[in-house]
């Protein structure tokens, strides 16, 4: 079997090449592949009838328990014969259906062959998952076949619709199959059917599997894709929509029914939908005017019929079901192919425009009538045999529930009457001469080869009726696997004698004839009863609704707005961990509002400033207000008894403000974006809530502390080992000196990064020294070295004077902070910031040349020197035999100065100092001086020698 499947694959891959070589004759060669499979299948007949199974197993993916398990039993043989036989004939038919040089024939041939292969695989697969794989393959290939060349929108829509529905059903089926497999403890179909599991999982799994079968076999309410798929070329309709793909659902139900029919939910679902589908399909078929659509609705109806039979879960119904399946495959393919010939010959399929074809194409008409007779269930055709068997079974009570059997029987009889009616309509529409219509011209008569396939199929249907007893052993072989059944089994036969079933058959034919006779009135009634809503529209509404929902959600959540994105994340954080916090957190036992009322005042100021920052439109004011919150925090530090922290916080806050101002010069004064009040309110709520959340987490974390803080030993250790009384500073330069080393390296990197974004060519621009000559030209007195280079309108004498007086004092102060930091508030970081602020003052008072005069050194040098100092201290310690960054305390008495205590970590602190100064200088250079220069010289970039900018 595997060989046959591979043969199909190879043929499918070769098909485009063959078509290129031989044109449409290639189909003849391709038809040999399914024909070979057909022959092989029939050759297994005797083995299967003897009760032996033909099976092959190849391990495929052991890790997932996937194996290629193929098995041919009676049911599989029957379906395989249909699939391969009809497949071969349809390919034969294609050799004349397509014009000799039609575009896309190669692809079509390949896809059709591949489809035939996957269909064969589907019916012989014994592994649940392998079955699913083939199932999905048929979906994909049918999608390609229905879409065809795809020039037309309708074909594309139909193809997509069929694909979406059957894929969705297929995926539901996959879950179902896995669940059924899990519940039954085996993934082999044969074992699952023999020994199905039970319980909720089994029930849910079974329903999901049925979903797959229902969508694939176009049951109500998913029946609408099948008529829409009639956009496909006729051979596709004949094969996929009569013999093969739609039968996949029937096959699956037939395969599982022996084991799963007693699972709760199976019978109501299968029988209910089956009967409903039969009635809906038959009713709709009555008012179609396109022959193909008429057949399509007829197929829907028949599929409902078949589903009812094979899903009923009793021996007699199962036998009737498979017989009927065979009959349906034979007559429906024939009819589709017939319509194809009609279409080909006359150019139309509209039964209102066809007239008198029966005379002009007598062979075709004979074939069509034979098939139609089988469809209507007239003796002696196979359709009659199947229907007869079904009626008999139900009449005798072929279902566990007698009432259900009666209801189903009534439904089937009505459905069969409708079938007879639309069959008559078909025959009349296709072949009869209509009085009010001129005879249709036959453009080109069909060739014998074109007619071969329908003729063979119709003949098979004719012969199978009288010879149906020959079929009986095969059917019985399958039917016997169904546990439920009547004690006495009636074999298939054309003539059972005068039984109630015969009367029912007669009734259906008569009723059908009557319906056809009053067709004008029927169609008027139908038009009056037509309801606005159909399942098809429902589908499109769902799809459109999904689309609209998607647009709506995208429009509201994915606008590219950063606050919205952040808001989403924050809301989730609030919703999940926030809930945990609210519901489960152990809150600290004691709450104290404040230690001194001053804290409360500071708190009020900070909160007010934060609230104001939301309202203020001007960037600068907003930044200042944000600064206030920082200063407030610094005050809190001071009140808490941490002067060193407070000092640092003040300095950092000031420097941040300066940097902000430098940047804000380049931005518009006002924040341009306005938000609606509601939007602002939402953001405010989220912001406050997140702030509260973070604060609460902090409180809980602090409250949950059980261990002694590491800092408990710090005061003592700081003095004993670090030689300093300022714990913060000693921590920085000694206890956690490694951290500090890392952080100052980071500062260097950050400074370099900022600078390199502004200076494109070199690390930093040259130092802007004021040229001597230029300064002497200006003979105004100046307080500052390069103050004269500023635009007079921007100079401020007061500022210049103050700078002149304060600059050196501040520098000295900064050095004092550096040296005193070990015992008093201060340290390298604070000192460096103070020195930096002094430079800021010079820059603000005197402009970029003044900065160059104040610090005629490249910031990179300062940064590098600082890092060298700090790192050198560590290496020095190592060289002297101590640990890296270990502090040594040298005490000595010097003349004049008195007792001097030198702690080596001071050198480390100097490194920090230098780096901070370098950082500030870098910021001033790049965001201050360089931007000034670009503005002054109207030159966005520094040019290399000889480089030109085209303006």
């Amino acid at each position, binding site marked *: 079997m595997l060989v046959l499947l591979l043969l199909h694959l190879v043929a499918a891959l070769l098909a485009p090449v063959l078509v290129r070589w031989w044109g449409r004759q290639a189909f003849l060669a391709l038809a040999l592949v399914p024909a070979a499979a057909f022959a092989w299948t029939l050759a297994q007949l005797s083995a299967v009838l003897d009760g032996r199974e033909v099976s092959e197993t190849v*391990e*495929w*993916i052991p*890790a*997932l328990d996937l194996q290629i398990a193929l098995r041919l039993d009676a049911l599989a043989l029957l379906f395989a014969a249909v699939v391969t036989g009809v497949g071969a004939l349809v390919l034969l038919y294609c050799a004349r259906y397509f014009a000799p040089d039609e575009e896309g024939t190669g692809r079509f041939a390949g896809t059709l062959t591949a489809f035939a292969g996957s269909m064969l695989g589907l019916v012989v697969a014994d592994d649940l998952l392998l079955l*699913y*794989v083939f199932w*999905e*393959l048929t979906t*994909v290939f049918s999608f390609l076949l229905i*879409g065809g*060349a*795809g*020039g037309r929108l309708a*074909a*594309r829509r139909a193809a*997509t619709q069929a*694909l979406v529905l059957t*894929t*969705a059903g297929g*995926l*539901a089926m*996959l*879950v179902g199959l*896995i*669940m059924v497999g*899990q519940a039954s403890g085996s993934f082999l179909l044969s074992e699952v059917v023999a020994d199905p599991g039970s319980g909720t999982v089994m029930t*849910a799994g079974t329903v999901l599997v049925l979903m797959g079968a229902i969508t694939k076999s176009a049951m109500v309410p998913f029946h609408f894709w099948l008529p829409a798929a009639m956009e496909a070329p006729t051979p596709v309709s004949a094969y996929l929509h009569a013999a093969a793909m739609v039968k996949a659902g029937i096959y699956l139900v037939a395969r599982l029914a022996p084991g799963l029919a007693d699972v709760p939910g199976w019978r109501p679902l299968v029988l209910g939908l089956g009967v409903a589908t039969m009635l809906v399909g038959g009713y709709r078929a009555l008012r179609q005017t396109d022959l193909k659509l008429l057949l399509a609705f007829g197929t829907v109806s028949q599929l409902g019929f078949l589903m009812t039979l094979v899903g009923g879960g009793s021996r007699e119904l199962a036998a009737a079901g498979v017989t009927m399946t065979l009959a349906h495959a034979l007559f429906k393919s024939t009819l589709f192919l017939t319509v194809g010939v009609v279409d080909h010959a006359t150019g139309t399929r509209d039964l209102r425009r066809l007239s008198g074809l029966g005379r002009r194409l007598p062979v075709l008409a004979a074939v069509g009538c034979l098939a139609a007779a089988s469809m209507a269930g007239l003796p002696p055709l196979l359709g009659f045999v199947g229907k007869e068997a079904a009626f008999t079974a139900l009449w005798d009570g072929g279902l566990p529930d007698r009432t259900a059997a009666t209801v189903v029987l009534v439904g089937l009889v009505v459905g069969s009457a409708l079938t007879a009616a639309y069959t008559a309509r078909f025959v009349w529409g296709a072949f009869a001469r209509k009085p009010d219509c001129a005879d249709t011209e036959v453009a080109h008569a069909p060739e014998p080869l074109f007619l071969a396939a329908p003729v063979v199929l119709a003949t098979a249907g004719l012969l199978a009726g009288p010879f149906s007893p020959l079929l009986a052993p095969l059917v019985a072989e399958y039917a016997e696997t169904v546990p439920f059944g009547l004690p006495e089994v009636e074999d298939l036969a054309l003539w059972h004698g005068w039984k109630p079933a015969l009367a029912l058959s007669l009734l259906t034919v008569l009723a059908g004839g009557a319906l056809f006779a009053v067709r004008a009135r029927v169609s008027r009634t139908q038009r009056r009863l037509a309801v606005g809503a159909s399942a098809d529209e429902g589908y499109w509404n769902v799809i459109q609704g*999904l*689309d609209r*929902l*998607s647009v709506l*959600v*995208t429009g509201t959540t*994915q606008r*590219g707005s*950063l606050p*919205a*994105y*952040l808001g*989403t*994340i924050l809301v*989730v*954080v609030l919703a*999940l*961990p926030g809930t*945990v*916090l609210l519901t*489960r957190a*152990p809150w600290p036992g004691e709450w104290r509002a404040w230690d001194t009322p001053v804290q409360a005042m500071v708190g009020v100021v900070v909160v007010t400033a934060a609230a104001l920052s939301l309202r203020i439109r001007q960037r600068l004011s907003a930044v200042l207000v944000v600064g206030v919150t920082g200063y407030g925090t610094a005050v809190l530090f001071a009140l808490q008894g941490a002067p060193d922290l407070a000092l640092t916080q003040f300095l950092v806050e000031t420097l941040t403000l300066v940097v902000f101002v430098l940047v804000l010069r380049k931005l518009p004064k006002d924040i341009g974006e306005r938000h609606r009040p509601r939007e602002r309110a939402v953001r405010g709520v989220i912001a406050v809530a997140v702030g509260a959340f973070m604060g609460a*987490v902090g409180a*809980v*974390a602090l409250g*949950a*502390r059980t*261990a002694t803080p590491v800092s408990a030993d710090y005061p003592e250790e700081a003095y004993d080992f670090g030689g300093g009384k300022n714990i913060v500073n000693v921590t920085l330069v000694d206890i956690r000196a490694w951290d500090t080393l890392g952080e100052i390296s980071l500062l260097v990197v950050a400074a370099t990064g900022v600078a390199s974004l502004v200076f*494109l060519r070199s690390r930093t621009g040259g130092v802007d020294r004021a040229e001597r000559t230029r300064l002497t030209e200006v003979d105004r007195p100046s307080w500052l070295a390069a103050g004269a280079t500023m635009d007079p309108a921007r100079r401020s004498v007061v500022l210049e004077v103050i700078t002149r007086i304060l600059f050196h004092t501040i520098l000295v102060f900064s050095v004092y902070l550096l040296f005193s930091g070990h015992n008093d508030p201060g340290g390298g970081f604070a000192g460096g910031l103070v020195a930096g602020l002094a430079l800021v003052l010079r820059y603000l008072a005197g402009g970029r040349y003044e900065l160059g005069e104040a610090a005629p050194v490249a910031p990179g040098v300062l940064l590098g020197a600082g890092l060298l100092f700090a790192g050198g201290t560590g290496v020095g310690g190592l060289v002297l035999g101590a*640990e890296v960054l270990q502090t040594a305390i040298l005490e000595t008495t010097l003349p004049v100065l008195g007792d001097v205590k030198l702690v080596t970590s001071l050198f480390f602190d100097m490194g920090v100092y230098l780096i901070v100064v370098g950082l500030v200088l870098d910021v001033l250079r790049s965001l201050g001086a360089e931007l000034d220069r670009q503005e002054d010289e109207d030159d*966005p970039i520094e040019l290399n020698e000889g480089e030109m*900018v085209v303006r």
Partner: protein
Amino acid sequence: MIEAPDLDYAALAPLLFLFGAACIGVLVEAFAPREVRHPAQVALALVGTVGGLVSAVLLAAGRDLTGAEADVTAGSALAVDGAGVFLQATIAGLGALSVLLFAERGLDPARSSFVASAAVPAGSVRDRELLTAHRVQTEVYPLATFAIGGMMLFVAANDLLVMFIALEVLSLPLYLISGLARRRRLLSQEAAVKYFLLGAFASAFFLYGLALVYGAVGSVRLSTISEAVATDGGDVLLVLGLALLLVGLMFKASVAPFHTWTPDVYQGAPTPVTAFMAACTKVAAFGAILRLLYVAFGTDEWTWRPLVYGIAIVSMIVGAVLGLTQTDLKRMLAYSSIAHAGFLLTGVIGFDATGDSPGLSATLFYLLAYGLTTLGAFAVLTMVRDGDGEATHLSSWAGLARRSPVLAAVMTLFLLALAGIPLTSGFTGKFAVFRAAIDDGAWPLAVVALLTSAVAAFFYLRVVVLMYFSEPAGSTGSGAVTEGPTVGVPGLPTTIVLAVTAAATVVLGVVPGSVLDLAGEAARFVG
């Protein structure tokens, strides 16, 4: 006195290759003349990534990493176990392919998808001059190498602090290189800024969570956390910490509702970078999620399981439904990545505290399969171009099969794989993770996953329909033919990438047995 930790150099070799190549790359950037930089950097990055791949494979081959020889090294900061090495090899391999995409010189007329000089303001005179210059900001290569190294560190991190550092090492270069597109630079820079700002928040959450966990347990080592969790699982600090850690990690893995950045960044970043992010970052982030949940919090399954369960559903639905309306292919693939993150979480759910976790091996396989497929899909995107760069709008892809049947066929393969159609790697992966979830009793989750798969299949297949069944873009009904997009002739690098990814997609779909076995064997974390 701090003892120097023992270093197991063989186990560190994959990381050393990457970080070594990256550091040398920085030096090359500083000292090599501009003409030789590009070839040198490409060669270096390839040596690093391929070296990382080979050394990881050798490491796995030489030791029994799933049993006795699974170990920790570098002062127990790094885990050397089957899953870690599998993920490292995956990342290195996908990284090597991404580097090849970066190195493509044949598609863009300006010979690279990366900007000539990133610091030149977009739209300035100088920028316009440089638009057609053959110069490239070659820092991309060392940056990407650092990111790959960071990812490989991320999946092997055995303590939260190393994990955080790895997170930053992988994130920072990504922020940068997503802003380096040569065309549509403002969009690219905007993407970089968004990614950076939101990423900074995510990192902050991770760090906060880390601090809380440390506060609760007193250690950042995963095994210690696991022990503490076993005795004291309900501790609120621990739960809060876990939640915040997950926020940080889920952000990186672009799991909804932390996905908001994904479409914008995927669209704005240069396509090779998008491919890199979609493939490698996803693997790395899920590697870390798996390790965190299975190793550190494995003894406390029931705390995170409902959370992951819910997030998986949200992610699948958001990805699939929002993907429906996308008209830009890059955005569409971004939503697809969100949906796939949900599918991956389905596998994560398949955790079994007793040891053998089908979810782990399934997720490992899924990551490999998805990474290769998505990388290939993005590689195809780089080839369809119009005058303004890549033509990623859906309408430009109409009728592509007629212009370039091979390209359309390859893209179809990738899309089918993403949709999870049988005989492609996507099916095997999906099947494996869903199976794991169902094994664990989470079949309602699998049902949701399949329904969303069906919705997602709709938008993948829509592209297929468009390529095959529509009139080519540019030609109108009246017969007037305007200029449609062209399909570029790929150079050797892109060709290699397409060949490898397409072959892998087929092989992992048809005969995935050996790779699945490998993932199954590798699926062990050292505790």
